[in-house]
């Protein structure tokens, strides 16, 4: 079913969504925030540009944005899928613990901060273009993949992976020239890593109409922390 959200406030949109069928298209979206906050059984397509905190606490719903998205997409999301056919703003996937965020274009600052994983819940964010500064800060789990497609080789800006203590960040191509903290190791992705990446890229390539083999036809670099307890030695009992 189609809902024209032109001029509607965010609370009205979410109310309509809660009452709607499972498959919904929102038309005329222009900056309304908090769309689909905490929702689970919905399949939502959005024409236009949703505002901040799209899909916060998302709990299984699927969201496709046919355009760009703004800040704080998928904040603390638990499950589900968010597909952005454009660029995404700052702080995407903050503290997400499950589900998928696929971005065709670039991500802003602070993407994937404090992503975490637990047992079979492993969140994944794939950024087609490049990522801004502070990518994956405090990352505690989950996987971020930065592909650098159509970016003239640019992958990520300054200070990625600061405070990282779990999870993985994959970069397509040579290791980025950004300054990484000393407790993060950068290595060439292994065979096993490549198998994992391939599994994730199949769906991504299909959604955005890329050829998966072209994406995979490059070396990948993987960033991991060298310890789960990087701050262990910092303290003395008093």
């Amino acid at each position, binding site marked *: 079913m189609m809902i024209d959200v032109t001029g509607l406030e965010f609370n009205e949109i979410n109310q309509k969504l809660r009452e709607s069928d499972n498959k919904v298209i929102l038309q005329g979206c222009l900056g309304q925030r908090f769309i689909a906050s905490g929702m689970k059984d919905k399949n939502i397509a959005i024409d236009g540009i949703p505002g*901040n905190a799209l899909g916060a*606490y998302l709990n299984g719903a699927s969201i496709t944005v046919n355009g760009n998205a703004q800040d704080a997409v998928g904040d603390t999301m638990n499950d589900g899928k968010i597909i952005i056919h454009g660029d995404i703003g700052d702080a995407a996937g*903050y503290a997400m613990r499950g589900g998928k965020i696929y971005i065709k274009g670039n991500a802003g600052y602070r993407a994937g901060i404090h992503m*975490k994983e637990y047992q079979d819940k492993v969140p994944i964010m794939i950024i087609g273009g490049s990522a801004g500064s502070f990518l994956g800060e405090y990352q505690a789990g989950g996987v971020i993949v930065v592909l650098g497609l159509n970016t003239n080789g640019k992958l990520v800006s300054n200070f990625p992976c600061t405070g990282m203590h*779990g999870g993985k960040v994959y970069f397509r191509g040579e290791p980025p020239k950004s300054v990484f903290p000393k407790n993060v190791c950068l290595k060439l992705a292994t065979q096993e890593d490549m198998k994992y990446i391939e599994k994730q890229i199949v769906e991504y390539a299909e959604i955005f109409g890329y050829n998966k083999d072209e994406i995979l036809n490059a070396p990948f670099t993987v960033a991991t922390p060298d310890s789960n*307890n990087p701050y262990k030695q910092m303290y*003395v009992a*008093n």
Partner: protein
Amino acid sequence: MALLFYPEFEVVRNENRCIACRVCERQCANEVHTIDSESGLMLSDETKCVNCQRCVSLCPTRALKIVKSDCTFRENANWQDDTIKEIYKQAHSGGVLLSSMGNPKPFPVYWDKILINASQVTNPSIDPLREPMETKVFLGKKPSRIERDEKGNIKFKLPPQLELSMPVMFSAMSYGSISYNAHKSLATAAEELGIYYNTGEGGLHEDFYVYGENTIVQVASGRFGVHEGYLKAGAAVEIKMGQGAKPGIGGHLPGTKIVGDVSRTRMIPEGSDAISPAPHHDIYSIEDLRQLVYSLKEATEYKKPIIVKVAAVHNIAAIASGIARSGADIIAIDGFRGGTGAAPTRIRDNVGIPVELALAAVDKRLRDEGIRNNVSLVVGGSIRSASDVVKAVALGADACYVATAALLALGCHLCRTCQTGKCNWGIATQREELVKRLNPEIGKEHLVNLMVAWRHEIKELMGGMGINSVEVLRGNRLMLRGIGLTEKELEILGISHAGE
């Protein structure tokens, strides 16, 4: 290796009384006590003693006491014992000093410099034994005016409220920093008392969802254990921006405490550090805070009040004014004497301000700006007694948060070594054999006793003033006088000096 310094405490064992039953040995997780197999005598290694008094309490013949060592460095008002020892510790480790529980330094405690009024002759006091006294309070946004429909009936549609049988709640302590049995005691006591306890930032254990109606669930920068079910389980959601014991810095539960259920409840792997970044990295302004407040309201469909908890810091009045405009329903202010399971010593002892001053400043500012009804105010950070509660309410608080007092009720002896995870009282530990020392049934009973007693005292104090409800006492600063305070302190507290 040479001793850095002589141990802080001495274990004094009365050999005439000691029967070498080895209870002390079994009770001490710090392994202070051992038996000498040859002589059959008990020995003690006081370098390991933290003065938690567990052995003293359980010694069946009262053969033990722990005393402060009188072996000290040469007296020096500037370079005091603790200061010198801290230098030695850091010089040998290169570590940041880490402490537990609230600021122990001799800063002024304003509660102890405020006196409460009583009625004499010109207005009658009320005897709570024979007259009804209302201690119930509601927390949440209140309408600023009465609205009526066309028939003249009052439109009665309040934003969501928390109903408390008395103006006290148990403040945030995470599962992980304290034990399962401690959480269970708090949850069951809150349910019986008709108040609330707070999960802290470590998620909500699956066994405690049944106490959801008396639970405040917390969302902190690490977002541990936060998911839709958790948000919906609680009666309110608290956004933790800061904590009185460590304003401006984040939390860090070491991987050694992330075991078993704690790992499952926080939803992070065993052994992995639980790091809460200092700021929420999606909140750099009041506008950003508003965004988190409303995303939580949307996720919980506007059915639950949203609390924003901040540490009492400089300019707290302006900060609270911003929060009151962010859509938050309740502001919780945590003073610099608030407790913690672990905080860098320097931060705990030097950052933040007393909650008494913060509360008075915030209440005044919100009233001056005409937005006091936008929010309820909850204050914590060392509320130690019913008279502290009464003074806080008269200074403008809607309710108080207590944590250290609740831990004391559970058996804590304030040895201030929570960070070791070896709490002999079964509170700040995850070691099974220690946790089971705290019986949650008895823990609940003690918490209920404490609060029932405080409730009686609150009624008596109010009755003495001729006031019969907490609602009427709130913000009634005429009932307070300062003693030994400067003009400036009185001005900030908004009270007169005793004798005026």
